[in-house]
């Protein structure tokens, strides 16, 4: 369904002819399909590149007037950002890319949606600050990280989930009204999410992220943390064998292997209790190997040549200290905990790779190499609960994944889940990453089957591990597990978006 001439003309009048297109080859750039995702994609009718909140609001009003669905878009890493019904326009927020403020005293940054991790992270780091940069690659939108998705990643051990760092926001509601939340409308600045003023964080963002369903957030303040380590780092070498040089006396990485998840759980809880270390995670063993390889062929050599067994259940620990004494103190506790819980330190040649690539822990470098096996990839679960609970979830995966690995539908890596303790182990995030071969039709079909099975198993066991997401069928299925929150989510959506135009998911 093409846009009507009137609608196109009104939209073009808002952004200017340069920043709107309905040409097929331009639309093709955002007609990206992730074929294994079980909902139907459509071509957007137009793509717009607004330059301001006012332009976004005007576009949204035109969309409501003509019944056009709209999807806010920045990097497009997630499948939620593509047209999922006919009569949709993409509102590409790329041009709204200013860092409006970095407040060192109150530790927050105010950003527009087009600011990427690769841009904000070094700027805050120069000021001795940091934030939880989601595992999406350098081009991911920082704002979307904090507002629209779960936004979790592997350096949150000493911090918390992304939703806890969202402060005041400016947004355009699904009907085109400009709304400011938290301390902002009271003229008190951006520092507070809950007032004085309307505290709508839980509504506009929620636990799993809004995915653009409640309008378009055009400015947001995010909380920052103090960071340990250098304000700027030096990089040597040419990609892909470049290295970030850290002060090795104050930064160390250790990798230990365990023979069962309960021991890993005990180690995580003990380290959290002592509040030591900068990163603690039970990492995916398949990506662990992938990160250390130069090509898929190199991966296969290493995976079948002993890496799989050597790192079958790895606990990765990064220590970043302010002083030598602090590092030694943390190391002493770490080694005591590992000894008591039965961990085995990796051979030097394997562990050294991590010591030489500590940027992975700082800036989530190189992460996309986990996609090296052809791009068939999907994270599951993505929920959070106590460390013990998510470890039990991890333990359960092995009981049903074999049906899929043994039939070749998904990659044979049953322990390929990560657990990230947060707030020093007060709770933890779990992510099951599974991969398949995109050239295998049976595997493509198996993706949906495995997703459904994973949900069913969690429901059966009353596990709080699955992300409710934003697809209606998934919400209906999992909502009862989360106090029927899907009913409230739907009511809120209907109130904010009576015309059902803001990223209406199936």
């Amino acid at each position, binding site marked *: 369904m093409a846009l009507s001439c009137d609608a196109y003309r009104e939209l073009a009048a808002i952004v200017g002819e340069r920043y709107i*297109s309905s040409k*097929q*080859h*331009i639309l*093709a*750039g*955002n*007609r*990206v399909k*992730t074929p294994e995702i079980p909902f139907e994609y459509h071509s957007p009718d137009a*793509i717009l*590149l607004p330059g301001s909140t006012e332009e976004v609001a005007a576009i949204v009003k035109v969309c409501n007037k003509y019944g056009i669905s709209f999807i806010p878009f920045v*990097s*497009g*890493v997630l499948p939620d950002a593509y047209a999922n019904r006919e009569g949709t326009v993409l509102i*590409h927020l790329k*041009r709204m890319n200013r*860092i409006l403020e970095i407040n060192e005293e109150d530790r927050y940054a105010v950003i527009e949606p087009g*600011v*990427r*991790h*690769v*841009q904000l*992270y*070094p*700027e805050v780091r120069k000021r001795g600050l940091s934030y939880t940069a989601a595992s*999406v*690659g*350098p*081009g*991911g939108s920082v704002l979307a990280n904090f507002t629209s998705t779960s936004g979790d990643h592997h350096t949150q051990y000493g911090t918390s989930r992304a939703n806890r760092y969202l402060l005041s926001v400016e947004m355009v509601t699904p009907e085109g009204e400009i709304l400011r939340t938290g301390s902002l409308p009271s003229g008190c600045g951006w520092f507070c999410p809950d007032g004085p003023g309307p505290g709508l964080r839980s509504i506009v963002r929620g636990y799993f992220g809004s995915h653009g369903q409640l309008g378009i957030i055009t400015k947001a303040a995010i909380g920052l943390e103090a960071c340990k380590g250098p304000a*700027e*780092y030096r*990089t040597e070498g*040419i*990609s*892909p*064998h*470049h290295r970030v040089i850290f002060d090795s006396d104050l930064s160390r990485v250790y990798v230990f292997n365990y023979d069962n998840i309960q021991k890993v759980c005990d180690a995580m809880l003990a380290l959290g209790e002592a509040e030591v270390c900068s990163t603690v995670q039970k990492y995916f063993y398949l990506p662990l190997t992938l990160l250390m390889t130069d*090509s*898929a*062929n190199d*991966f*296969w050599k290493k995976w079948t040549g002993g890496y799989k067994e050597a790192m079958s259940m790895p606990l990765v620990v990064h220590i970043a200290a302010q002083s030598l004494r602090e590092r030694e103190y943390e190391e002493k506790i770490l080694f005591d905990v590992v000894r008591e819980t039965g961990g085995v330190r990796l051979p030097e040649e394997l562990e050294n790779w991590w010591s030489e690539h500590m940027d992975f822990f700082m*800036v*989530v*470098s*190189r992460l*996309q190499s986990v*996609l*090296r*096996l*052809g*791009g068939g*990839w999907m994270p599951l679960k993505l929920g959070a609960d106590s460390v013990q609970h998510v470890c039990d979830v991890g333990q359960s995966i092995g009981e049903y994944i074999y049906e899929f690995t043994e039939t070749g539908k998904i*990659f044979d890596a049953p322990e390929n889940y990560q657990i990230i303790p947060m707030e020093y182990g007060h709770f933890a995030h779990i992510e099951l990453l599974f*991969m398949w*071969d*995109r*050239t295998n039709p049976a595997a493509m079909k198996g993706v949906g089957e495995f997703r459904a099975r994973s949900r069913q198993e969690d429901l059966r066991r009353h596990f709080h591990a699955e992300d409710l997401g934003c697809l209606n069928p998934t919400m209906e299925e999992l909502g009862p597990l989360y106090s029927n929150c899907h009913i409230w989510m739907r009511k809120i959506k209907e109130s904010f978006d009576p015309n059902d135009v803001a990223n209406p998911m199936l």
Partner: protein
Amino acid sequence: MANLADFRYTMESCNHCGQCKWILPAKMKGWDFASICPLHEYHGFDAYSGQGLVQIAKERLDGKLDYGDGLETLLHTCTACGACDINCKSVRDMEVLDTIYALREDCAKAGYLPEPLRRTAENVEETHNIYGEPHAERFSWLPPDFKNDTEADTALFVGCSAYRHPEIPLAAIRILRAGGVKFKLLYEDEWCCGASLWRSGQREAAEKLISRNVDTFHRHGIKTLITACAECFGAFCGGYPRFSDTGGLEFRHISQVAAKLIAKGSLPLKKGENPLRVAYHDPCMLGRLSEKYVPWNGKIRPFGLHVPEKQWRRGEHGVYEEPRAVLRALEGVTLCEMTRNFEQALCCGANARDVDAEFAAWTAAERRREAKASGAEAVVSCCPFCQDALGGEGENPLPYLDLAVLLADRLREEA
């Protein structure tokens, strides 16, 4: 060259992570200078990026997209600088740039080659240079007393740019002579290197010209070919093996030769009159795109296993260090590094001039802005096309210096 179908794996592997548009995380420095794709930065729509072009290629391969509504212009506005390709390949096993080349070939076959590129091809066919200048004048800049060493097995390939920038081959000649390198010129037997043909997807014309050139080099008994043009150098290393067996031929850029001569103490250098802070701009075809192309005709098995194993061109072994070594050897010259340097260098935009002059000018101005931000008083490079772009008029003006010319000016009189 290859067909679109050869790159289906790349098309279906892309997870639109955006690494083709942004600097590598480990090399990021701040908000500014973070984009590595000038096409995407300027035009905004994702279709104008490596990711977008790969998606377009897939739709074209599947018969879902036609030329004629501007796609052909978009495709050739891309400078094919390869930044998307190299950054993608820092983490993935995908061929982004080769997919773009295959799409260009598809575009040419469909009869939609933009007019300026068609004209260039006609020039090469008729006059053996991209400008349509008389072939007889290719070496008209050469001093009359120049004596050719016809016995040498090394040749200096001056390239078409000699018509526009004769000071560059003259400088190269001075450097080689000063360093005692025996070489010869090919005179009327030297034709265009063919870069503009193969990079614009004109397979048959490129194949014909490149085969002819390789035969000529062999006929002249050449073992080593030196050039002062990054475009020619990148074509020899990354393009020629796609069409012809270049076995027995070694290709060297003048910066590599000069760096070696300097390291050996074979070039007597004098001090410059004034201190100078310069930023070195890595030409795409000398840096990330100059690795040797090794043909691969294998199969991709499940989960990305390439059989037989493929030799990837990830940009790691380009010519980065030698030009910097030359600059460091020049007393009084201080090298300032830009944020986007080495394999992350931003393209100068030259290759887009014929199709989208406004975008090309913006790209050059953006690169000069970055050079200025590094504290440089001048930008140095070693590619005549980069010279046209960066040394041309436009915003953020900054003096441009060719590396070979700068070095030749520093040779002592006796050299």
